[in-house]
């Protein structure tokens, strides 16, 4: 099997985004191996932060990369960066997995409106990575909101119901939290 043999090679080449997209759209194996090596750790981390269960997260990452391979023709570089596209596929796949079967039972950082804020004080090891690391810089209310919308996939209306505040207020507060996240990212440049 060609793929099985090739992926063991340590490919040192680097590609610009436009080159990589070109390779992927041609179904080039080296391009795909490069993509996996570059993106899989960040995608795995993001999925793990949603699902909080290693084995299921691995299955999701596997499904994500298969979907990327099969649907790369749908990717439009003019709309978003390749990583942004893959990250959105990964989040959708993670929520699909969470909403099916026993995976609903995974431990959650926020379980109810009442204990939501206090639960967030308990940090797990994976909170030290990626976006989670930045969220720790938000105030407690903002942490809860981002946790619920980004890591639990709840809509504004669902969050409003959970927290007992108007949907429009949720929307506004989330946007303020997101701006703060952007400022943190800029500071970290």
């Amino acid at each position: 099997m060609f793929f099985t043999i090739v992926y063991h090679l340590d490919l040192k080449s680097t590609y610009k985004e436009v080159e990589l997209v070109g390779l992927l759209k041609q179904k080039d194996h080296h391009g795909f191996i490069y993509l996996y090596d570059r993106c899989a750790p960040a995608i795995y981390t993001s999925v793990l932060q949603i699902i909080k269960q290693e084995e299921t997260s691995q299955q999701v990452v596997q499904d994500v990369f298969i979907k990327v391979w099969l649907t790369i023709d749908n990717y439009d570089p003019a709309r978003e960066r390749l990583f942004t596209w893959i990250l959105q596929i990964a989040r959708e796949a993670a929520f699909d997995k969470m909403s099916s079967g026993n995976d609903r039972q995974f431990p959650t950082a926020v379980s109810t409106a009442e204990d939501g804020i206090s639960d967030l004080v308990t940090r797990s090891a994976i909170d030290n990575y990626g976006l989670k690391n930045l969220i720790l810089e938000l105030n407690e209310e903002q942490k809860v909101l981002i946790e619920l919308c980004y890591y639990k996939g709840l809509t504004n209306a669902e969050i409003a119901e959970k927290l007992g505040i108007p949907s429009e207020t949720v929307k506004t507060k989330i946007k303020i939290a997101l701006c703060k996240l952007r400022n943190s990212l800029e500071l970290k440049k």
Partner: protein
Amino acid sequence: MNIQEYIESGIIESCVLGLATRAEQQQLESMCLEYPEINNAKKAFELALENQLMKDVVTPPAGLKEKVFLSLNMHGVDKSYSYKKENSYNAPVQRMYIWKWVAVASILLLLGSIYLTYSIRDEYQKLQTATNQSGDPLNDSTYFDAIMVLKPIVEKPSVKWSTMVEPTDSAHCMAHVYWDTLSTDTYLLIGNIPKPVSDKQFQLWEISGNRSVDLGVFDVSKEGKLVQMRNVNNAKDFVITIEPRGGSATPTLKTRYAIGKL
């Protein structure tokens, strides 16, 4: 329109992180086309986010890469490799007269591909007719080219899929099951499954609680091929068991060969 206010409204971050509504995303897309400052702000946030997410990571287990690429082999990538376009995006342009031949070749390829598409469709319809006439469409499993058929299936928003793994070793991927929530069509993509002894056959089941639905038997002579199984109205967990040739009425759960959840 205050561009700076729009940039600082949080809409860009909301869209990039996948939190925005479709309408908000469409609005941002048109704003990006109209205002370069907004487009630049969006690009800057995407890049900063990407850098942040790639900087601090949990390294996935080494076996995951192997699993991904084994699955890709199952999805027929070896075949797609030969479909690689000759005039790739960075292919050097040579002399002009070559393009005449390229144009002729392209037309011939186009005609060939149209013929091939109709031939395959015709073959598939013949297979469907033949299997429908036989009474049980699964006695003679309908195999068709994975790449040709799988792509449009996977792209449907209504299709969910499940990775079938060994019950005792979740690292060993055996197959994938695709289930269309609207049409209830069920497909099985056969992976690296060894052949059972001649009087035995694999059987796919959908199991919810105490209820099991027989989705049909299948042979494993064609790895990397897609088999259309029986439809099932509701699907949650799938199981592949080894049964006497021809299949059983109820699953022999002692011989569970692979399991998967939607």
